[in-house]
């Protein structure tokens, strides 16, 4: 009846009748209370979030950012592959054609005039990042912050697109 153990690690537990001290439970209870008491003096595991942040792992996927190339032009060409690949259907966009004189803003001839990600739908799977042929979208941001209204979770280009390089430099300079 006893099946041959597949893992070879099965242990047969002996069930001895409890002795007197085990039966009155009190020693066990006191032992347990001793253990919990000692935990009062252990290091707290809590990370006080907004002030402290846990270190992100290397493949952490956070808020999306739409990247710029080395000249500060938006890389996205509004091909829609990210929206297509998105399992949560979180991405919508409206494309537009690049006019003359906008070459310093957009790298390709077509660009996304509107680009929105609904952060309530997004499951941070990273498929958009994988699908993108232009290396325009990366999930390298922080945790998406909480908010009060649903509409505030629909992130437009204002929140998604990376800052222009010179502004970023200026900001860094100000901080230092």
């Amino acid at each position, binding site marked *: 009846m006893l099946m041959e153990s597949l893992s070879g690690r099965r242990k047969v537990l002996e069930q001895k009748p409890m002795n007197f001290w085990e039966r009155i439970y009190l020693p066990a209870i006191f032992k347990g209370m001793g253990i919990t008491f000692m935990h*009062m003096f252990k290091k707290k595991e*809590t990370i006080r979030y907004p002030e402290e942040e846990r270190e992100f792992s290397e493949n952490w996927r956070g808020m999306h950012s739409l990247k710029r190339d080395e000249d500060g032009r938006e890389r996205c060409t509004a091909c829609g592959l990210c929206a297509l690949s998105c399992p949560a259907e979180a991405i919508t966009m409206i494309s537009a054609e690049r006019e003359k004189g906008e070459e310093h803003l957009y790298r390709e001839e077509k660009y996304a005039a509107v680009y929105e990600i609904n952060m309530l739908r997004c499951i941070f799977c990273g498929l958009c990042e994988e699908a993108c042929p232009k290396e325009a979208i990366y999930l390298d941001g922080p945790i998406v912050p909480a908010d009060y209204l649903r509409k505030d979770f629909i992130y437009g280009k204002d929140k998604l697109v990376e800052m222009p390089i010179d502004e970023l430099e200026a900001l860094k300079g100000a901080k230092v």
Partner: protein
Amino acid sequence: MELAFLFEKLILVTVLFVLTLSIAAYSTWLERKVAAWLQDRVGPNRAGIFGLLQPLADGGKMFFKEEIIPSGSNKWLFIAGPSLALLVSFLGTAVIPFGQNIELFGKTVPLQVTDINVGILYIFGVVSLGVYGIMIGGWASNNKYSLMGAVRGASQNISYEIAMGLSIIALLLVTNTLSFKEIAEQQHSWHWNVIYQPLGFLIFIICAFAETNRVPFDLPECETELIGGYNTEYSAFKMGAYMFAEYINMFVSSAVMAVLYFGGYNYPGMDAVNSLLGPTWGPVIGVAVMFIKIIAFIFFFMWVRWTIPRFRYDQLMDLGWKILIPLAIANIVITAIVITVVDKL
């Protein structure tokens, strides 16, 4: 003279009322903190420094929540349940001596609302009334889970009351009085009753857990089986009233245990301190000692709650009827024999 007496009592009652309320409120805070500490967490720390404003925030929340009275319920009794629970829980504080007689403005003031000569029995009666709040509320909710909770609460209270009463009888054999004041006075400096009645104290504290419906005996509100037990249907302030009643009961039973077994406001070396500080500040130290003991017991209640899992219902009844009651009776017999022998010698 009589007016002064009434005035004095009125002040004492008011102070006690406010004190009880704030201790109950801060017990909720302490409960969370203790739970957090025992689980390597930090606990509430956002509302005020160390989260000290948390009880206020909770109270505010309770006030502004929607009050739901289920349509199938018995409206009056539904309201009467939590009110009764809260009311009865306050009654216990009346007979507890919080300190020695203190000299204030040239007058000797007892720090006890009233010293009735059957104080212990009074506490006992009040405790046994406490279950009505649970029963009425549970029944009036017109919900099977609530009713089960109410029924459990009632049978648990009645079962453990017996063992509790028997453990007190053994204590009374030692003290020879039913008045809290005299019991407290007898335990001068280090002559605490727990030294003479260790078994009685053990039985008493187990019963105290059961009577206040605290873990491991919180079967009336056991959420894994009964959703929320007797307070399943309650919301907003009525729910708060039940919770408050539980914490006040915890405070009262901690105070009772401190007075009956742990010397109340007595501490070793109190005579020296009293003669040093005089009749006003000496008793104040005593009151502080009393409150330290009470808070230690409250902490103990919480410590147990976050350590020990809940009993099963049949285990609860077995423990009450088959273990604690025989033990308590044995304790009475042993105590009686020892007292007779010691008296003869």
